[in-house]
């Protein structure tokens, strides 16, 4: 899989961002032409004024007489400005309509809820047993218009995956949405684009655009419940996670842990990132479980102060959650 244009507005990896880029180029060209013309007229004007001053036009009382060439020039200039503005308005209208049109043809609906400081992702389906809940990671099928409903649980966040689409705010108490039609298979990075508190910088999102069969395979895998722990260490971790602090906030499908305050951990170890900021690895998992408050000070996950044997067990169990 390619990670080109991992996080770039020129990635052109979705219909929406292509439309934005086309619009950007049109605006750039029209405005550049206007700018060059204005500067040219300014220079011409200065030169002309010098010539006119030498000819003593004012003293001879001829300053009110209009110059036919100048009059024609001004009318033409007005026409150019008018045409340019109309062109910009039409281009903007067309891009806006085409995006609204894509929203009307959604094939997949995902609800993304912003929290301090992580993304709660839920794949909506008419059939409840087909719903998938994950965190900080979006999987999208290529070529399918996906409507992402955006909500916030606390403060204003902003959903921004530069390679795929523009920004859209997540506002508490109000539902917003954005439609994305990915066009290139790849991995893209998104970020919260509205300052939302101490750990705003550590609120990233990975978007994995898959081929349709890969996406369906991923969805089927996500629907599975967590495997039963097989080793004694993982079993000890399972017992800790499901009966102690962890289960007060986290859910793991197929276990008694079913709280919705924190991210769903059912397939934690299969995700690319941990805590919306770090690559998923055993070391990072140890660090995060041992002391989240020194990695992301202020995060809602408390430093529990696990005993070393509990820490080993919990991490061993979390690593089985593929």
């Amino acid at each position, binding site marked *: 899989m390619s990670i080109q244009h991992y996080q770039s507005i020129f990635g052109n990896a979705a219909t929406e961002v292509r439309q934005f880029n086309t619009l950007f180029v049109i605006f750039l060209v029209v405005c550049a032409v206007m700018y060059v013309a204005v500067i040219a007229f300014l220079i011409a004007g200065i030169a002309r004024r010098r010539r006119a001053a030498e000819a003593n036009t004012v003293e001879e009382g001829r300053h009110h007489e209009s110059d036919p060439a100048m009059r024609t020039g001004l009318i033409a200039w007005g026409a150019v400005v008018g045409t340019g503005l109309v062109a910009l308005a039409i281009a903007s209208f067309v891009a806006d309509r085409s995006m609204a049109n894509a929203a009307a043809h959604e094939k997949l609906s995902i609800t993304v809820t912003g929290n301090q400081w992580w993304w709660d992702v839920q794949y909506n389906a008419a059939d409840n047993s087909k719903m998938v809940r994950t965190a900080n990671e979006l999987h999208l099928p290529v070529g399918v218009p996906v409507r992402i409903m955006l909500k916030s649980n*606390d403060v204003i966040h902003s959903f921004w995956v530069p390679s795929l689409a523009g920004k859209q705010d997540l506002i508490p*108490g109000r539902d917003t949405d954005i439609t994305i039609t990915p066009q290139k298979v790849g991995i893209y990075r998104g970020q919260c684009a509205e300052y939302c508190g101490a750990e705003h910088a550590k609120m990233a999102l990975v978007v994995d655009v898959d081929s349709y069969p890969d996406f369906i395979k991923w969805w089927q895998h996500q629907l599975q419940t967590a495997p039963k722990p097989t080793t004694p260490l993982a079993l000890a971790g399972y017992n800790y996670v499901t*009966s*102690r*602090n962890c*289960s*007060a*906030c986290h859910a793991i499908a197929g276990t008694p842990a079913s709280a919705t*305050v924190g991210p769903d951990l059912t397939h934690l170890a299969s995700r690319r990132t941990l805590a919306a900021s770090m690559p998923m690895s055993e070391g990072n998992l140890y660090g995060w479980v041992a002391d989240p*408050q020194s990695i992301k*000070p*202020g*995060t*809602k996950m*408390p*430093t*529990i*102060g696990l005993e070393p044997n509990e820490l080993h067990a919990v991490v061993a169990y979390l690593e089985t959650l593929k």
Partner: protein
Amino acid sequence: MSSRFRASLALLAVATLALAACDREERHSRAKPMGETVPAGTSPDTIWPGGTVPQTLDPRAKLYDNNAPAISQGQSLYSQMNCGGCHSHGGGGMGPALMDDEWRYGGRIDQIATSIAEGRPNGMPSWRSKLTEDQIWQLAAYVRSMSGQPSKDAVNSRADAMSATAPQTLTPRETVQTSDTAEQ
């Protein structure tokens, strides 16, 4: 130096001193010191026979009581841990009201923290193994704010969610009393 200059200098000095007094309470992202937990079964008893001297206040109380970040964290924990399921927004339901003046097990912050950690008869579960000591104290700080105990500059002027109750800055301060002294 003119008297006017001296006066402005004095004013500046006073203003600088006043600024030094603008000392917001410290926000700590984890319990201090770490790992200070009361072993199960040996936490201080919070009910004592009438007439005896109340126990001294737990030293941790000053880290949380009247502390704006702690009250605010407690407020979000209150909804996340579904305290409202029994206590509603403080008015009580299946569980007792938290915004009135009556405290069956004491209304001091350490007593409330003990009630949360240990659980109480007739339905209050023990949160000792579900929440950290830090979180329990934050919750206790918020619970105390429901009956207007902290000063008004420490509490939130708006609730996290839409609510029909008045903002906490307008909550009247109830006199804390235990059940046997409260009017039945």
